[in-house]
């Protein structure tokens, strides 16, 4: 990594360089495309000075957020829906928002997903997200449905 070129995220001493950046991905609400989201996260995270383990943690956290959105789409019979993943980077942190347009009630008790083996699966997914990132917020927004925001601090 010693020869890694100057990054827009790390070198703001140059005039033509910005210190924040946004990457946005939209995928169908289908399990088949979670892998695409994970690849994108790997690309984004490897632009930042995260360790191998931190990149893996982020992949898994984002994968879990997508899986949960896809479960809800399947239960609602909305396999035509999509998921939007927005990564916002600055020199201090990477913030990732996973959102979908389907109605979401955070107070509704979780129900087993179609094909899921038990409720526990969803509990484990939520637990993993909590553990793997530094901050997490899950809310419902009128326009976006569920919005999961996860933050990983850089260089801690």
């Amino acid at each position: 990594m010693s020869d890694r070129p100057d990054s827009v995220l790390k070198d703001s001493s140059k005039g033509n360089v910005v210190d924040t950046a946004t990457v946005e991905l939209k995928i169908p609400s289908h399990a088949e495309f979670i892998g695409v989201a994970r690849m994108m996260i790997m690309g984004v995270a490897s632009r930042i000075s995260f360790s191998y383990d931190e990149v893996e943690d982020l992949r898994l956290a984002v994968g879990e957020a997508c899986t949960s959105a896809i479960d809800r789409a399947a239960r609602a019979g909305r396999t035509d829906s999509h998921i939007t993943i927005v990564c916002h980077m600055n020199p201090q942190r990477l913030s990732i928002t996973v959102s979908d347009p389907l109605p979401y009630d955070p107070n509704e008790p979780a129900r087993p997903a179609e094909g899921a083996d038990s409720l526990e699966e969803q509990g484990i997914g939520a637990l993993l997200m909590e553990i793997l990132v530094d901050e997490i917020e899950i809310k419902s927004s009128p326009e976006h449905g569920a919005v999961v925001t996860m933050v990983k601090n850089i260089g801690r």
Partner: protein
Amino acid sequence: MDFSLNSRHLDNDTVVVDLQGEVDAFTAPKLKQEIINQIERGVKRIAINLADVKYLDSTGLGVLIGGLKRAREKSGQLVLICPNVRIMRIFDITGLAKIFEMFPSEEEALARLRSTDDV
């Protein structure tokens, strides 16, 4: 991305299911079906080999928990082969390392499966 599984029957009673690649919501249903098939054909000693698993999410963990439950319902056993520290970490942080019998090698997993006659 990639996922494959291959079941090796060591005897009528014992199978090692080798997994390779990424176990997620897209691929885990294949694993679930394979475990159900093995139990239905009467296999009592199941070792799931996670040595070549590159990614494992809650869907995969859920399928393994379900497999453990189904095996026990039929008085069978399901153990995990998990030499990969990265995958082991996922079991550790979720507390599932205490639920499963996990072994760093196939030899140790098979020794455990064969140590019990009560299945």
